[in-house]
């Protein structure tokens, strides 16, 4: 079987782009699960809100993509913190199922509201001028915006990993994941830290939404399509594992891309088949610790 390098590379690039979104979203989920013990089903809706905030900033206030990259995560992150303070905080100590049901309900409400006002079809969001065009690498054409998404996502993921694994603030987060009562007894305001962590996880989802807007258009259900795969990524990487989420996100994006080239019929299911295999062989995930 002859391999068409250009087509293979194009699918790999698509895989890397999807992997970028998987990584950013699953990273946010991992951060939230690690700290709040909540499986945040609203993550897809908050990702969609990030894209919509970028759209509003441009269409109402004339603030372009670069402003949206900074402002959308802050605005949606603040919305997330309000959700945490007013609702999620009340679920502390309860079974996972309560958090899952609440966030699932929130996702349905948020998506329903947006669908009510904007319908189901996509709203256009242009690629910023500085990132238009592309480069011919000889074996493939590399669109500048797509390259930017991969590099920027990877940078944000690694910065988040550094923040959590290598800084004092990250040490607080990791310690509070293990024993919040003791960390609080050391003088750390753990409830505030939990709220900020939820804001950080939600901000990452919103950032992915902004990055996605010029590629996938802005649609109320854009998060619902993605979130199931992202949960599979989190399960494969290991619930709560930061590096596991990043590596698995990119890896599964590439796996999907390769499957699209070699056996397109399986491209929608390959992630779930892989998840089943991982659950059978290593239930705690590729990088997760056994319970």
């Amino acid at each position, binding site marked *: 079987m002859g391999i068409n390098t250009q087509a293979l590379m194009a699918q790999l690039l698509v895989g890397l782009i999807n992997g970028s979104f998987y990584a950013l979203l699953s990273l946010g989920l991992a951060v939230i699960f690690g700290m709040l013990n909540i499986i945040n089903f609203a993550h897809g809706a908050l990702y969609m809100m990030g894209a919509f905030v970028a759209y509003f900033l441009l269409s109402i206030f004339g603030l372009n993509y670069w402003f949206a990259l900074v402002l959308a995560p802050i605005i949606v992150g603040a919305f997330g913190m309000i959700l945490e303070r007013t609702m999620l905080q009340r679920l502390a100590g309860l079974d996972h199922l309560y958090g899952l049901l609440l966030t699932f309900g929130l996702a349905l409400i948020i998506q329903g509201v947006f669908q009510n006002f904007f319908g189901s079809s996509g709203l256009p969001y242009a690629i910023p001028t500085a990132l238009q065009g592309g480069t011919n690498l000889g074996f493939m054409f590399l669109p500048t915006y797509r390259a930017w998404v991969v590099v920027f996502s990877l940078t944000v993921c690694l910065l988040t990993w550094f923040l959590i694994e290598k800084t004092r603030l990250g040490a607080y987060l990791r310690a509070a994941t*293990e024993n919040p009562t003791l960390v609080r007894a050391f003088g750390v305001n753990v409830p505030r830290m939990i709220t900020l962590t939820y804001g950080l996880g939600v901000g990452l989802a919103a950032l992915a939404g902004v990055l996605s807007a010029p590629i996938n258009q802005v649609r109320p259900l854009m998060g619902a399509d993605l979130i199931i795969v992202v949960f599979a990524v989190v399960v494969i990487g290991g619930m709560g594992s930061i590096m596991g989420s990043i590596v698995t996100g990119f890896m599964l994006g590439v796996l999907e891309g390769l499957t699209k080239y070699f056996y397109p019929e399986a491209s929608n299911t390959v992630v779930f088949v892989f998840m089943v295999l991982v659950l059978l062989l290593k239930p705690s995930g590729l990088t997760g610790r056994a319970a």
Partner: protein
Amino acid sequence: MPSQMAAQAAPRTVQSAAADAVLQVENLQAWYGESHILHGVNFDVRGGEVVTLLGRNGAGKTTTLKSVMGIIGKRSGSVSFEGKQIIRASSDRIARLGVAFCPEERGIFASLDVRENLMLPPQVRPGGLSLDQIFELFPNLKERLNSQGTKLSGGEQQMLAIARILRTGARFLMLDEPTEGLAPVIIQQIGKTIAELKKQGFTILLVEQNFRFASTVADRFYVMEHGKIIDTFANSDLAANMDKLHAYLGV
């Protein structure tokens, strides 16, 4: 017998509540859910003292420390630290006032290495021990700085747990059974450390079941039973109270 003693102990406690008390606890009650655990605990700790809470398993010693620290959600009565009422304060606020707590299970974080464990508690007051001073007290920790916290031996973990709170600048330490499960040679080392901390002016509230150890470091003792203080005496009165103590502790 215990109820009679409680009646006797209470006035003595109130009398000993001198103006220089760093910690004064009056009628402290605490609950775990519906279970009423502490039934009006009264005691005080004065500046520079080592005070030990003695008692059998389930007497309420650990719950008393946790209640003072604000970890037990449902509590009432009065807990005054350096003149400030802290019965309704959250544990992070109590810690920032200068109260440091070393839990019975040591609380070493598995996801943090020794250095991170050591540096974790924020400084709540100036004057915390520097790393060099800590390594002087616990030389083992210096060699294990990059090891995972929970990979240390039990003794080293206990040293780390104590060292960690000395960095914060808090001058009032609450140590919950620091000798539990440790080899005699390590217990001796912990005893020396507590004596050294006392010499440096720290005030220490200790919970112990190991009476032999406690008798070497404490200035005063309170005996607890069924969530109450049932007796109290100074170290100097220890010999005279030995029979009673044996009866209380079942030793």
